């Protein structure tokens, strides 16, 4: 098809852009796709799709793409036309079809995780929606997650410079996940993917700077260039000395992300966990499990065994080197960490309380009734300070927590207190989980520190078998069978029984004689164990929610998660293989995609109602979620 630049349509474009501006207000100025583009001599497209309807489109400060007014064929095509106006290439619509400058229908591929039903269904649904609402032909392809990560998602860090938002930016520290400007691409070309979802970090949204702190952020595989001052806003958030200041900065960031759709945000999934119906304690809360010592079956008396199943074995139980969530749970039965968050996502002290005036100097106050097993004696501030200084901050040990303590100055201030001074103040430091420490006896570490023996430290049997755990956990570890899982016995000396805070039930907890975590790799077997009562808890796949909801032997809880499902669109040089240029780089085009994919049907049809619509990079229950207008 041909494109005929006409003065009339050009003017229309301007009018609509001005209307947008007035609707957006000041903060939206830089975010608006239309205003950053040059006023070239591009025209509107003709063709069967018509050229009307776009002048009324208003995208608010916090647009919710994919629902209500911002969902459907009309709005998606209007936004796509906006994008084509800014494109250097003659894309447009021919009848219902979106066509390339050569007149061929636009064809894109979308990858999903091989063998994962939900992922596949979602890819197919997106394909249907894009075909229906934007006239794009989508071919759905399965791929192994590891292969996708290595060949498509990451690239050799190359660095380089590019103009972002009118400024010359240099990639000084390229990473495999952000190897350089949009011109730097992975080995294999790809258009769209639902293989990976990401964390939205609702407790400490500052962590999201890894994704969105400018185009050079550490993790930016899709090559997104923010059109708002992301770097400046994250800096404001970092410097904030009050909760209000913090919230203001974050809300602005998240409003901008909602508008720019760096990844097309689709849904935030719930975790479905099936429990023994007689079990009291599990809650449908992000912090579910924080008060585990108060959980009980029937009457709150000590009896029975709390048995769970795990899909994978643990590669290590050494608290210094473990990075796996599953193994973290296995360690957690035996060893508490410094603190946790309660049902209201508020700080709850376990081993130590943390306080600060301005977010820069933090004081840690230890409980005084903590002891290791013999011969290590009481847990004191010296143990923690030594752990941080001699191990986490050393250049040889390379522990899992090493990065968390980089640049933090730690100093002992008393037998049961120490303080940490941060390089830059952080009001949400505990929420970043960085100051979360396991108690490890100093005397156990000393020989390895003296000889700088990292292998010895990794392979130390006392650490691997958690033999020093004293009264520091709800249970003691009986056995770790590498292939089969862990078994535990109740710890009668558990320090949590003698604290003042928290539920009264802590005084008698935990309410189980024994506990176990069995490694059962086959999902059908895990579910079978849940049904027969051999397991007290097990994850449930969404497609089986209905049948377990009706099953008397199982109580299903929907636990909200911060993990999202996103449509990643490749804004790098090897994205958009169907024609010249890459419309994914244009914000209005990503908005068009977001508007073309209906979230309600997605949630009902594929997630069976067990997910929340995802509009910006925070779940709705986050305190930093942009307010309702």
């Amino acid at each position, binding site marked *: 098809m041909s494109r005929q630049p006409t003065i009339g349509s050009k003017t229309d474009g301007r009018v609509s852009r001005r209307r947008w501006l007035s609707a957006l207000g000041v903060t939206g100025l830089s975010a608006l796709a239309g205003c950053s583009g040059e006023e070239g001599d591009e025209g509107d497209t003709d063709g069967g799709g018509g050229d009307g309807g776009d002048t009324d489109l208003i995208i608010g400060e916090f647009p919710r793409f994919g629902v209500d007014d911002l969902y459907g064929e009309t709005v998606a095509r209007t936004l796509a036309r906006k994008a084509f106006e800014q494109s250097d290439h003659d894309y447009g619509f021919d009848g219902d079809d979106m066509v390339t400058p050569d007149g061929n229908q636009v064809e894109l591929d979308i990858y999903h995780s091989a063998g994962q039903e939900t992922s596949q269904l979602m890819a197919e649904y997106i394909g249907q929606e894009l075909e229906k609402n934007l006239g794009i032909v989508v071919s759905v392809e399965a791929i192994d997650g590891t292969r996708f990560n290595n060949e498509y998602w990451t690239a050799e860090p190359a660095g380089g410079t590019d103009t972002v938002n009118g400024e010359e930016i240099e990639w000084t520290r390229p990473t495999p996940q952000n190897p350089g400007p949009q011109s730097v691409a992975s080995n294999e070309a790809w258009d769209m993917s639902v293989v990976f979802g990401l964390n939205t970090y609702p407790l400490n949204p500052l962590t999201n700077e890894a994704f969105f702190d400018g185009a050079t952020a550490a993790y930016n595989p899709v090559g997104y260039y923010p059109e708002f001052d992301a770097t400046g806003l994250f800096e404001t958030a970092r410097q904030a000395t009050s909760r209000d200041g913090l919230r203001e900065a974050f809300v602005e960031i998240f409003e901008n992300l909602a508008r720019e759709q760096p990844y097309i945000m689709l849904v935030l999934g719930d975790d479905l966990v099936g429990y023994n119906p007689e079990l009291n304690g599990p809650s449908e809360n992000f912090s579910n499990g924080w008060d585990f010592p108060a959980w009980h079956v029937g009457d709150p008396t000590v009896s029975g065994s709390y048995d769970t199943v795990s899909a994978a074995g643990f590669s290590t139980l050494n608290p210094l080197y473990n990075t796996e969530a599953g193994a973290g749970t296995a360690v957690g039965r035996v060893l508490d960490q410094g603190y946790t968050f309660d049902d209201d996502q508020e700080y709850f002290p376990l081993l130590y309380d943390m306080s600060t005036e301005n977010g820069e100097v933090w004081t840690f106050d230890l409980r005084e009734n903590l002891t290791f097993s013999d011969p290590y004696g009481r847990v004191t501030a010296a143990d923690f300070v030594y752990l941080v200084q001699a191990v986490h901050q050393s250049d040889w040990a390379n522990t899992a927590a090493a990065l968390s303590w980089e640049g933090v100055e730690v100093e002992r201030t008393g037998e049961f207190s120490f303080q940490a001074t941060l390089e830059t103040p952080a009001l949400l430091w505990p929420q970043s989980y960085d100051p979360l420490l396991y108690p490890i006896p100093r005397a156990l570490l000393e020989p390895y520190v003296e000889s700088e023996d990292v292998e010895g430290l990794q392979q130390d049997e006392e650490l691997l078998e958690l033999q020093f755990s004293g009264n520091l956990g709800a249970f003691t570890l009986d056995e770790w069978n590498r292939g089969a899982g862990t078994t535990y016995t109740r710890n009668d000396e558990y320090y949590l029984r003698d604290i003042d805070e928290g539920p009264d039930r802590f005084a008698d907890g935990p309410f189980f004689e024994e506990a176990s975590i069995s490694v059962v790799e086959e999902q059908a077997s895990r579910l079978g164990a849940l049904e027969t009562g*051999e397991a007290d808890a097990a994850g449930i796949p969404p497609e089986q929610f209905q049948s377990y909801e009706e099953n008397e032997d199982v109580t299903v809880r929907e636990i909200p998660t911060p993990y999202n499902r996103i449509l990643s669109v490749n804004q790098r040089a090897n994205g958009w293989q169907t024609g010249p240029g890459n419309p994914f780089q244009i914000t209005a085009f990503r908005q068009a995609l977001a508007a073309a994919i209906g979230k309600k049907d997605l949630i009902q049809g594929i997630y069976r109602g067990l997910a929340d619509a995802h509009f910006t990079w925070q779940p709705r229950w986050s305190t930093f979620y942009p307010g309702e207008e």
Partner: protein
Amino acid sequence: MGFGTYVTARVMWAAVVSFIIVTITFLLLAAAPNPDVQRAATQAALQGGDPAAAAERARELRGLNEPLHVRYLDYLRSVYTLDWGWADSRSQPVTTALAEGLYYTAQYSVPWTILTILLGPLVGVYSAANMYSWKDHLATGFAFFGYAIPNFFFGIILLLIFGVWLDVIPVVYDTSVPVFSVANAVQLSIPVFVLVTGSIGAVMRVSRNESAEFQHAAFMKTAKAKGVSPLRAYAYHVMRPTLVPLSTTIVGQLLALFLGSSLLVEKVFGIPGLGRVTYNALIAQDTNLVLGATLAFTFIAVFGNLIEDLVFTVLDPRISYDDR
């Protein structure tokens, strides 16, 4: 060549074969980039350090800067002294990991192998003796069913029926029960049944066809004419020549099955055996453990072939030592 000389020569040949395989493995490993070195370089780059220096340090730490022959001798010494290194994906020595896996695998594979070797030829010869009767069709149907249905799927179905609906076997495999106990026999009954049905088909079919050849052979007519009982006729005169070609099939197939089917069955039934150890090591890119498992299976295969050749000569005296 006498029997003793033959056995000695054959054993030495097995040692040479294992040595060649071990050497090839070393050369492949030496040629492949070391993931640890790459990881160290990537990490250094991420933390703003010098990737080249970090890689060099990592190579030094692992002795990779030594000349090839020094590393080769070191490697040979480690392999043959069973110093196989540390399995990162399980936080234990490789030999311990393999031994633990073998401990659980043996508990079902020994009964599985014995049952297959006993029942397979028996059913096969029985089928041949009653060829094209309904009994033959039943046995053949059974064999083909077991052969055709994927083990893991059959396993899940049986687990659902006996574990979840009837609740007569535990769904979660319990490693704490003693090896020789009723509880262990009960929890292993279904996995063993699944595996036997899966492997018996091929053995049964081969022995059926092989023995069909022999039951009309001249020596059978002679035996029958001399009044040998049918049991002795089949068990001795037919079974023995049948077993010669069968023994090649059995050893080869069982070795192949060992890793393949046992992984899926171990996964379904949650048995922490060798198949899962190996598979998870591959997934976790645990080089030491993968290498250890490779060597272990190599040695088992070499040993299996050795046994097979020796059994040949015992079963069939006509096979001469001189040609081999």
